């Protein structure tokens, strides 16, 4: 069966988004080594299909709560590379004026409520955002992205129960990359099939191949459709893998090079690229143009971040409390 033209254009758009995340993060890693970026830096490389696929199911009016591994999520929500890069430089033009850094990206028009670096800490917040929507009669979805490691936290349980009990429109988007730092899923969960966790809450669930962006998109659309119809929560597990270390301080003692290599064979970008090439929709020139476009965007973001100013030190204690009345 040959795809429709629009489908293929859509696939190309997905590919582009994934490539943007990949190249942006590769550059970030370099800049980390160059000490331009500091603190903790968690790369999403290998997992791009998840954020890109899930984002396709969400509208601009929907909200996202993410973790410290959220450059990709910020991008797919429409945040510019400039704002993210400047943030990681700690500059004034960063999305959070340099106060948040890599782990704390926020955006008003993107409805991105963090960038939360406490594992599980974003789950209750997402439930509350959905509650606000329900109370205000908004037909919106709040998508909470979290790693499989967060499933062990009490807040996962409490949040699933509360969202189900109060029938709140939360997409629980679990990014199962098999490890929480160095702790393999078997060492953290007695039942490793995460979709089995949701029966105790009566929350519908599904698992999807998180290395296949088209599949993730379809599953996420299905999930969001269910949510919009029921008004209640949904649990979607994307099975994925991070190709890089947990952060920049990880000797990766807990997994074998072989395992990593095998997963790299399933690179979401390579796979979609190959498919499109085989279908005759992507030739070398087009790919090169895409790479060039993305490289330019990354370079522009770096230049922007380099040139941006620092927040004056006098402003240190600003934003501890609001300047204005509520």
């Amino acid at each position, binding site marked *: 069966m040959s795809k429709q033209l629009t489908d293929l254009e859509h696939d190309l758009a997905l590919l582009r988004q994934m490539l943007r995340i990949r190249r942006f993060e590769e550059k970030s890693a370099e800049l980390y080594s160059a000490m331009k970026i500091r603190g903790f830096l968690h790369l999403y490389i290998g997992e791009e299909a998840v954020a890109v696929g899930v984002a396709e199911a969400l509208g601009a009016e929907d*909200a996202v*709560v993410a973790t410290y591994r959220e450059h990709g999520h910020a991008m797919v929500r429409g945040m510019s590379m400039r704002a993210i890069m400047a943030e990681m430089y700690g500059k004034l033009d*960063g*999305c*959070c*004026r*340099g*106060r*948040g850094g890599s782990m*704390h990206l*926020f*955006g*008003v028009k993107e409805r991105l*409520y*963090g*960038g*939360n670096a*406490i594992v599980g*800490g974003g*789950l*209750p*917040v*997402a*439930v*509350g*955002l*959905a*509650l*606000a*929507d329900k*109370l*205000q009669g908004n037909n919106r979805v*709040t998508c909470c992205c979290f790693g499989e490691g967060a499933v062990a936290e*009490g*807040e996962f349980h*409490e*949040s699933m*129960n*509360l969202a189900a*009990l*109060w029938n709140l429109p939360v997409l629980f988007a679990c990014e199962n990359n098999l490890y929480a730092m160095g702790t393999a899923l078997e060492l953290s969960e007695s039942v490793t099939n995460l979709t089995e966790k949701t029966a105790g809450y009566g929350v519908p669930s599904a698992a999807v191949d998180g290395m296949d962006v088209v599949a993730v998109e379809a599953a996420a659309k299905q999930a969001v459709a269910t949510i919009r119809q029921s008004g209640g929560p949904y649990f979607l597990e994307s099975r994925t893998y991070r190709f890089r270390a947990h952060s920049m301080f990880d000797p990766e003692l807990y997994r074998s090079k072989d395992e990593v290599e095998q997963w790299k064979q399933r690179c979401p970008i390579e796979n979609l690229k190959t498919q499109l090439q085989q279908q005759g929709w992507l030739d070398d020139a087009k790919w090169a143009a895409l790479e060039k476009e993305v490289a330019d965007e990354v370079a522009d973001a770096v230049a922007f971040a380099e040139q941006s100013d620092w927040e004056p030190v006098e402003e240190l204690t*600003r*934003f*501890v*409390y*609001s*300047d*204005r*009345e*509520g």
Partner: protein
Amino acid sequence: MTETRKTTYREALNEGLREALQQDERVFLMGEDVGHYGGCFAVSKGLLEEFGPERIRDTPLSESTFTGAGIGAALGGMRPIVEIMTVNFSLLALDQIMNNAATYLHMSGGLFNVPLVIRMATGGGKQLAAQHSHSLEGWYAHIPGIKVLCPATMEDARGMLWPALLDPDPVLIFEPAVLYPMEGTLPEKPTPVAIEGAKVLHQGKDLSLISYGSSLHKSLAAAEQLAGEGIAAEVIDLRCLRPLDDTTIIGSVSKTHRALIVDEGWRSGSLSAEISARIMEQAFYQLDAPVERVCSAEVPMPYAKHLEEAALPQVETIVATARRMLNG
């Protein structure tokens, strides 16, 4: 003259809640047993019947998540009041309070403020033993990004909630559980109340008694007793524990040259320490004697009445300390 009527601290809080729910549709109350039970300490009694289950929400026993949901709802445009039954249980929600509520505004570089109010009962005096009796409000006052209130009077019990809801940032209101049955009067018409600034409730020239919450009433009683002995104590109700009102504190101490802080928190690292340190820094040369403190004994609260009484600040101790401070 304004009309006044008799009421209790509990009813004053209840009125404050009712008024807030009436005035702003975005306001709702959630917490354990705020609805069907009638409120753990009956503070929210009658509200479920009046405002319905959408706005008076009984929650499961999930302190961390319903507090975090309050943060999310505040971000989403509502004005939630989260009730945590007792301060000890708030430890289960402390991650949400400190790592989220108090940091969102700053981490986001000013993008997202959290207009959330969290109320809870606090303090000892009811023989509830080591897991229900702590006074942690002074401890919470350590956290930048939140404001911490402790109403001790009828006016504040009724009046503090509304300005707290208007505040763009998270406000924690601590209600000393022993005060719930306290009787007093209130003006018929609510008068606006500020949620900053301490208040001098009793003027005096010899010594400043600096206090808040249930200890305030012990300080007032002590002042009365001291007056009988010819010692004029000035009594300050801190009201707002974060930020502290240095002006009022230092002003009073500069007048009386002696300060005694009465604080139900465990002595070491209590709010009283911070106040003493500030007086040291800002009024050292005004002091005729070292600042002293009457606090709780450093013990997880025992159940037995005589032990609990011995653990808590008492009027006699305040009086004796004040007397000693003046007479040498």
